């Protein structure tokens, strides 16, 4: 298990924890981008180059900006008066811990079954292109339709009643 993996894992988990626990929502958003970057690097570490860059382009490039815009638009940046966490936060925490316990227990138990060391798959963008247009052409088309629909939907949902707001949150 290479050092790089540990470093990246630590980075991502730290980013995620910060995104969840920080008081200031904008800081949470920025921590989130760090988590996304960490994940992208993990993808690259798993030799999924295209996925890594796509992750960066989509999440850091668009979703992070989107989240930040949303925060600013909803005046989330000021720290909320009555505490950051919801009243029954303990229950949530316990449930999350429970889920983690179950998942990790499952992973550890199944260590025998899972395949371990395999060759590094050489993946070129051409292969991905052929796969996308060949075997997965239907999901591609459906995602295309989905994205257009989501774009229009988001615009309509967030549109200001009287005058069209500038196009935030449309990525």
């Amino acid at each position, binding site marked *: 298990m290479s050092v790089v993996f540990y470093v990246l894992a630590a980075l991502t988990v730290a980013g995620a924890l910060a995104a969840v626990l920080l008081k*200031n929502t*904008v*800081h949470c958003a920025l921590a989130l981008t760090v988590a996304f970057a960490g994940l992208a690097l993990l993808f690259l570490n798993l030799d999924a180059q*295209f996925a890594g*860059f796509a992750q*960066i*382009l989509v999440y850091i*490039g668009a979703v992070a900006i989107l989240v930040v815009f949303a925060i600013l638009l909803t005046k989330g940046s000021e720290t909320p008066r009555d505490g950051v966490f919801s009243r029954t936060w303990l229950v949530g925490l316990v449930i999350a811990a429970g889920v983690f316990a179950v998942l990790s227990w499952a992973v550890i138990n199944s260590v025998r079954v899972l395949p371990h060391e395999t060759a590094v798959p050489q993946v070129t*963008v051409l292969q991905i292109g052929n796969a996308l247009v060949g075997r997965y052409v239907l999901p591609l088309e459906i995602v295309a339709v989905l994205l257009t629909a989501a774009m229009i939907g988001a615009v309509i949902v967030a549109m200001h009643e009287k005058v069209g707001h500038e196009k935030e949150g449309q990525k």
Partner: protein
Amino acid sequence: MIEKLDQIFVSLLHWLVSSLPATLQPLAGVLLSVVAIVCLFPALFALTTVFERKGLGRIQNRLGPNRIGPFGFFQPIADGIKSLTKEDIVPLSADAVVHFLAPVVLVVAVFMGFAVLPMGRHMVLVEMDAGLLFYFAMGASTELAVFMAGWSSRNKYSLLGAMRAVAQMISYEVILLLSSVTVVMMAGSLSLTKIVEAQSSYTWGFPHWYIFTPWGCAGFVMYAIAATAETNRSPFDLPEGESELVAGYHTEYSGFKFALFFLGEYLAMFSISGLGTTLFLGGWSAPFSFLTWIPSWTWFFSKLMLSIFVFIWLRGTLPRLRQDQLMNFAWKFVLPMCLLNLLVAGAWRFMGEGWPRWFVCSVILVAAYAGLGLSEMRKGKIGPRSYRYAE
């Protein structure tokens, strides 16, 4: 001899690396080329600051800096010293961490872009299969840096400037992507080196650069527009519009951080025009078949400087666009044209050799431009300003 000249840097690199022990060699090789880029482009930055101020001066019928050094060429050194020595004031209410991080993230993101650009034959830092995608991935984080800068300085003007900058950059990034996608479709690969190779053949001495095809030309025009907007330059430099928003998102920065922002901006300009040359102007390939003997990197850098000159030229001549004009122009004119350009490229690909292909594509593009453009003009979409007062 010419190949030796052409590959001078590459051989220099190999020579240096070979002297190191085997295990470190790959690392050393990469480090060296990184060092090369990190030194070369800031030097170029310094140079262009002078060119810009001299150029603007000439355009405005004045001299421009000529006090320090011959014809004012040592001006950047003076600016550098000034920015280093200036006191770095951080507003009290500013969010220290984010305020400090913003310029760093910006510069790092922009530098990452250079890793993929093929400066010359075999002179690319990382030969990546999805090079273009890597470039855009890195480019995407600049918006985040701009936002961090704007927000962290807790200043109404900077926040407003940041918001405008981000909105503008997002809109034009879409167009940037789409126009470059046309090139990818024609070249059939995301890696920039393959794109340059696709353009390096000649017929009757004229190069196969993509700019000389109807969709390529339209693509380049749109790419240029998007590039200027992406780097907040010339007609689209609303975010730092001195007259309204003081200095936009980097108002609260001073001293070295401000210099970093300035560096970041220029580097972005270099990388985006570098990408432009690789995609449309044939990267390091010579303009005419009989000029191939000149080393490839010279062509790359000459085209680079040419586009920088165009940027400066634009800055000197065109008036600043308003925010809503800018947005409408992007979404209602350039984007549709990009999509159409994509279609035309597709048609171009399947129509086979011969003059009908040229005629049909160019007619479609011109007609679309005229129709869409005129309708926009007539309706005055780009025209009058619409106000919305804060509630």
